[in-house]
């Protein structure tokens, strides 16, 4: 459960710790969302340069072995800090990114992605001939702690088929393995995952990324069908079984204060051949001390004083920490965009009769009303890249030739003229109209007035909403009121539609119970409460946002292009090139249709002590955490 389509924009500060979290963002089909969220956005450098020079790098280059004479020395403590506590460290139940990062310190996952979207096998090697049956080979020499013995294929198969698949257990990975997935053991160290349909990007869906658990440990709970018992199990919660599976082992977990991990002498990866020599001495810290410091100003002050080594840096302070000698800031793109969703349902567009959001020309007009460059500069301090369609430009799926993607909100496609001419075209068959002062009037002659909802806790998010409101008023002649609201409250009262006994055309869950007549309890027009995942590694997953019965389609978008067909082509594509040509078409359609206001891709700006070697400025930073070390500045 959990992790990823939506990202509440309410500004919690933990964004940099985990390798898992990057993977988490890759797109879990059909899992539910709400990950550890982030301050959203921030990176880029100071301004325009980002978009041109760094764009390719955000995807990263495939790593090459660095020639080195000697391995770095093992030394010191790595001390990251975060703003909130972790809920659980039980790897089977954890749904949080921060905790996922801690768990990853103690236990390697199935595999990871190195820069360039290169699969780097860890515990498992996943191969397939036909993209339907995936054969997983467990690496030799993986040991649990005593008394649980070696990690074998049996542990995986048991875990998947007896815990994740049955409905009895509410583990976080249950949704990764639907009942139509067949998992069978082939030999001691090999098992296969048989998918219901071809999926060439199966690893990129992140579904097969799971943490192992010894069969002997979980068997009693499985036999008793004791979900709660397994959740509370001390061995699982204290990660006491991790053996040689990870670079560090959990030492102490002081709930509201800190987590201490110590170096694992026996880490298996250092004996693996054929990988970068740096792993031979891994890991390189004696200890990790991950602290909880709730106040942002205290966290940053501690970082400045060198009491901690890594922290999320808000956009305004990036330059300061970049300039300091002892610290550095690394810019990393996120797959989340900042969007403004329009409510297409019958309780949207409160400014008058009808719902103008349903008119493509009006939406295109609104897209011309907001200056993306100014938005990024003013609200996000330049740490962001403009978004024109559902894919960041560094992704390999972003079309080489993007002439089919209109660049609304920049250059000629920004300002009152392009905005109003398009809207006028859209409203030509209605009684709406512009007056001499460029104000959009509804049929009863009053200026159109809408409400935009934003997060009550996220300052940046509120400012973002305010920026859109002002641009809409100036360029589109629509008055927009900004209304901050708690995310959970918005979710329950504005997005979810109440259950109905009537037969509906379709039902994709509480967020989308059917056509436009299915509305939530409260009216809303515009919302920036959530950032949405664009799935740069596996864009076919984005289906859920655009088809009319997509489970996240709370805004009630009904495409007038063949979204369902194209996405189905995408998921059935057999080669990468075929996939790319389908996604190109999707992205062009999305850019033209403007199903929501798409504004920018966030860039994260984690700060590190200058002598920490390892963080890289691309999407995949952290994939090789066990090889991070403390070196020269």
């Amino acid at each position: 459960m959990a992790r990823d389509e939506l990202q509440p924009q309410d500004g919690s500060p933990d964004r940099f710790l985990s390798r898992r979290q990057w993977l988490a963002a890759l797109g879990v089909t059909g899992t539910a969302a709400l990950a550890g969220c982030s301050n959203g956005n921030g990176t880029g450098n100071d301004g325009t340069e980002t978009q041109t020079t760094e764009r390719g790098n955000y995807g990263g280059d495939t790593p090459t072995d660095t020639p080195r004479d000697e391995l770095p020395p093992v030394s010191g403590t790595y001390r990251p800090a975060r703003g909130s506590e972790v809920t659980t460290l039980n790897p089977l139940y954890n749904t949080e990114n921060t905790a996922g990062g801690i768990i990853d310190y103690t236990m390697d996952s199935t595999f990871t992605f190195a820069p360039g979207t290169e699969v780097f096998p860890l515990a498992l090697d996943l191969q397939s001939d036909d993209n339907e049956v995936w054969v997983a080979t467990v690496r030799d020499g993986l040991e649990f702690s005593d008394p649980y013995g070696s990690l074998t294929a049996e542990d995986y198969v048991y875990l998947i088929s007896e815990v994740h698949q049955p409905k009895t257990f509410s583990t976080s990975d249950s949704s990764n393995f639907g009942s139509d997935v067949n998992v069978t053991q082939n030999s001691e160290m090999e098992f296969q995952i048989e998918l219901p349909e071809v999926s060439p990007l199966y690893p990129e869906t992140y579904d097969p990324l799971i943490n192992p658990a010894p069969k002997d440990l979980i068997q009693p709970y499985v036999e008793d069908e004791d979900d709660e018992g397994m959740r509370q199990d001390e061995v699982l919660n204290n990660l006491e079984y991790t053996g040689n599976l990870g670079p560090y082992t959990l030492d102490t977990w002081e709930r509201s204060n800190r987590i201490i991990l110590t170096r694992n002498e026996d880490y298996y990866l250092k004996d693996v051949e054929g990988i970068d020599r740096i792993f031979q001495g891994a890991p390189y810290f004696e200890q990790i001390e991950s602290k909880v410091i709730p106040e942002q100003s205290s966290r940053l002050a501690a970082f400045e004083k060198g009491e901690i080594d890594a922290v999320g840096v808000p956009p305004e302070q990036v330059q300061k920490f970049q300039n300091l000698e002892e610290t550095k800031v690394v810019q990393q793109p996120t797959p989340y965009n900042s969007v403004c969703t329009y409510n297409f349902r019958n309780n949207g567009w409160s400014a008058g009769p009808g719902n103008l959001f349903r008119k493509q020309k009006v939406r295109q007009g609104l897209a011309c009303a907001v200056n993306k460059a100014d938005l990024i500069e003013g609200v996000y301090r330049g740490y962001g890249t403009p978004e024109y369609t559902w894919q960041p430009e560094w992704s390999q799926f972003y079309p080489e030739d993007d002439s089919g993607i209109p660049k609304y909100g920049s250059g000629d496609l920004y300002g009152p003229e392009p905005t109003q001419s398009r809207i006028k075209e859209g409203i030509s068959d209605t009684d709406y109209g512009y007056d001499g002062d460029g104000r959009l009037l509804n049929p009863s002659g009053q200026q159109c007035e809408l409400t935009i909802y934003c997060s009550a806790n996220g300052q940046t998010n509120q400012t973002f909403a305010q920026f859109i409101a002002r641009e809409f008023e100036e360029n589109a002649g629509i008055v927009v009121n900004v209304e901050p609201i708690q995310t959970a409250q918005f979710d329950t009262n504005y997005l979810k539609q109440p259950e109905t006994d009537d037969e509906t055309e379709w039902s994709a869950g509480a967020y989308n119970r059917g056509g436009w007549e299915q509305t939530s309890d409260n009216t809303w027009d515009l919302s920036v409460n959530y950032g949405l995942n664009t799935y740069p590694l596996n864009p076919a997953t984005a289906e859920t946002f655009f088809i009319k019965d997509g489970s996240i389609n709370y805004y009630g978008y009904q495409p007038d292009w063949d979204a369902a067909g194209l996405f189905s082509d995408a998921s059935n594509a057999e080669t990468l090139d075929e996939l790319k040509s389908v996604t190109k078409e999707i992205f062009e359609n999305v850019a033209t249709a403007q199903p929501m206001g798409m504004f920018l891709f966030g860039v994260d700006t984690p700060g590190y002590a200058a002598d920490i070697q390892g963080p890289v400025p691309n999407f995949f930073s952290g994939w090789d955490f066990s090889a991070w070390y403390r070196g020269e500045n």
Partner: protein
Amino acid sequence: MATDKSSRFDNVDWEAVTADSGRALSTNLLGTLLCVVPLIALLVYDFVALGQYEDTFAFVGIGYDVTQLDWLFALSLILFVFYALLPLYQNPRITRYYWREFKRNRPAVVSLAFLTFVFVVGLLGPIFISQPEIDLVTQYQPPIGMSVQNTYPVQCLGEVTSGASGQLCHGSLAHPLGTDSRGRDILVMLIYGMQVTVKIAFITSLIVITIGTAVGTVAAYSGGMIDEVLMRYVDVQQSFPTFIAYLLILYAYGGGLFLFIVLFGTFAWEGTARYVRSNALTKSEDEFMKSAELTGASTYHIITRHLIPNTASSIITILTLLVPGFILAEAQLAFLGLGDPTAPSWGQLLSTGRDALPYAPWITLMPGFLIFLTILAFNFLGDAVLDALNPEAQAESE
């Protein structure tokens, strides 16, 4: 109230009493009624005739929608005028006496001047000054006389000089107290914050006085079971950790400023109730009360004419301690991120600025010091009121 003391007043001529209280329709009550009736009419009009999103004063062309809070605020202002200011005017001799006593305490005079300033500016300022505008370009402008690293403001409106550690942006007249992280003018924000503060002070006082005196007198005059139950309830409420109660309720039910203020008021009247009760019990033993009873005055008359004026001084003292507590509680809740994000209160401004404290301290310091000064002023004032209204204590202590 009028039913259960017949045992004690069995010899009272009820008709005379009724006539008596009818005669007692004083200027104060008359004035209050004259103001409250139109207020209620307007309220009814707002709820019945107008839709949820229409502005109350649209018929005279004022685009302002009156909120629930404003209704309560208006009511408390009316009561303040007729039951606090008017009596002072009506009794010039006593007023002069109080003023003479009060004047000797110089910090208190300064405090009173400061609070009056906050009151007047908070009441009138928002009418003449429009809401602070968000302008990202002008974020983090320092106040006059201060400077900030030029990397923080997007555009510096003042003078830019180069200092030892890079370029410095100086404050300018455009924003004399600087701007916050969204480019809003701090001075304007502070003025809007004053209004919120004034609202908190007045409405909570209204609630505390109303519930407190009602419960206190009812308990004192009913006695027996009712007294026991009411006072035991007061005990419980006193034991309940108030701040925790706020947290629980605000989180469970979401919090706007209106709920805040109502909560503050409804969880704070127990001290007043206790005091009024014990005072009523003591005073009823006093000679003048007894003589009032003997002359056939009704309980209502005794309560309004003798008991409440006699406890007024203590209630005022209690309020001068309670009100700053509310202002502080609002700031604390805002600091914890549980405040009303739409209310332009000082606490809210303080909490938005705290992340920027190391480089833009004025955003936090300005509202912080205003909160500090206001609470301080209330304390000095309370101290002085205590001395002035309680000549016995002073005579004893001198």
